[in-house]
């Protein structure tokens, strides 16, 4: 979802946090000027939205035992998936980390929705001290891993998933320009054999660039070549 505010600023990319037939809920951290402008909107004001853009987590195949790893603002992109999984009977374990306790938000909603929740903070002010991926590392291998957060967290998650031999779906973060696949600014190297690889002539080493905003933002960890 890209939200272009007035003026010459770039659009803000946001995941849909929650949605029903009537409303779309967004959850975002005020990180800079554009999100400050968004947060400053008052009831009744209008804003232009383009989206939803790109893909989402693939919840087909009805997995029964799912680990969700969320870092920081990444929490916003996994709530709908968590709710959908619980609804079809999956057992969902949320591993959620942030720098400090004050940055851990909304996790009670996951618990209320029926997820098991484990927390970590870098400063130990809530949950376990350290990175959220340390929690996943010690866990029993689930059937599927979903993850959204900063790139280092996603890389660590991918490594753990590989060791566990569990498929992982990673929602990647990148700086965007067009947001619709037109500028090739947001790419990630991916195996050309992937179903998500864009149409491109055969590459020497079998690796091509997929656009995070168009073929993604969710990719299968085992297909990334980053």
């Amino acid at each position, binding site marked *: 979802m890209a939200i*272009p*505010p007035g003026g*010459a*600023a*770039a*659009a803000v990319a946001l995941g849909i946090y929650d949605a029903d037939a009537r409303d779309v809920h967004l959850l975002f951290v005020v990180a800079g000027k554009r999100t400050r402008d968004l947060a400053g909107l008052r009831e009744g004001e209008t804003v*232009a939205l*383009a989206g939803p853009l790109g893909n989402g987590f693939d919840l087909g195949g009805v997995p029964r035992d799912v680990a969700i790893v969320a870092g920081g603002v990444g929490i916003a992109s996994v709530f709908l998936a968590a709710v959908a999984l619980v609804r079809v009977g999956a057992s969902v374990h949320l591993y959620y980390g942030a720098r400090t306790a004050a940055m851990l938000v909304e996790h009670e909603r996951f618990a209320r929705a029926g997820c098991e929740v484990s927390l970590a903070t870098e400063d130990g002010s809530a949950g376990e001290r350290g990175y959220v991926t340390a929690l996943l590392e010690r866990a029993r291998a689930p059937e599927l891993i979903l993850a959204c957060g900063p790139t280092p967290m996603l890389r660590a998650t991918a490594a753990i998933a590989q060791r566990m031999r569990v498929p992982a779906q990673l929602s990647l973060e*990148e*700086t*965007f*320009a*067009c*947001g*619709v*696949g*037109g*500028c*090739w*600014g*947001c*790419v*990630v190297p991916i195996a050309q054999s992937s179903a998500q690889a864009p*149409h*491109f*002539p055969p*590459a020497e080493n079998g*690796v*091509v*660039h997929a656009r995070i905003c*168009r073929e993604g933002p969710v990719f299968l960890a085992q297909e990334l070549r980053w």
Partner: protein
Amino acid sequence: MVSAGLSVEIGALRLPFPTLMGSGCYGTGAEFAPFADLSRVGAVVLKSLTRKPRLGNAMPRLVHTPAGMLNAIGLQNPGIDWYLEHEMVALAEAPCAMIGSVAGFAVDEYEEVCAKLAARPEIAAIELNISCPNVASEGETFACDPRLTAAVVRAARRVTRKPLIVKLSPNVTGIATIAQHAEAEGADALAVVNTVRGMAIDVDRWQPRLGNVAGGLSGPAIRPIAVLAVYEVARAVRVPIIGQGGIVSTADALEFFLAGASAIGIGTANFFDPRVPERIVAELSAYLAQRGLHDLHEIVGRANVGFASAEQYEGDAG
């Protein structure tokens, strides 16, 4: 639908609107079709094509900067042959003119890619991107040298009778001279300008933000630079100019027309609001009506009064 007074000619090509979507910013148009009415766009300049496929630069390729952005895509493209084989069907159905863009690393590469594009009826005109700052690390592109510019244009002109647009670089001292060389070799129009070279550094990680280190600056930040480039080129050549660099509003567009551009390019603005081109077209119509003008051409170059004379700024006082 054509708005009276807004059409523009680039060589033999007549466009209903003077708005061209900047190369590399608008994909093939299809990507933006859900958000913009392509029938209200003058033309789409396609992403630049090279002889062979290119995966482009290492990530990251984008950085946002004050009133602008840096990009260093590095001409990612599937190569001319694959492109012609797989992408032309979609272009044939496009609701606006499609202009091919050619990039390269040698004169014969420009010649070969041009010749192949020239053979295709889906391609309305050809733009020579001799000014991409993201593939020559020290920034020396063909467009930085009058003789290299002339050589590329001459080679391309030999192989096509389609309207030929030459896209110039702002990263030079005398853009007017380079423009004259392009015109002399048969360019039908000049695109002024491509991005300005720049870079940004990540002060937390102590490293350049772009995988390619340097990139091209676009957006409102560079508009004053681009307007001056158009102003100077307009004094030096007679072919039409496609002014671009930081246009986000109708007032911005008017700066370029008044400086001497017959058409405008819109790139970065599409990233934060894909309705910008359509809005500019509507507002230009309204502007003409309000000023009692019949054709946009009446204002082209109207603010181009030359430069202050040397005497004026001598201004010696003692």
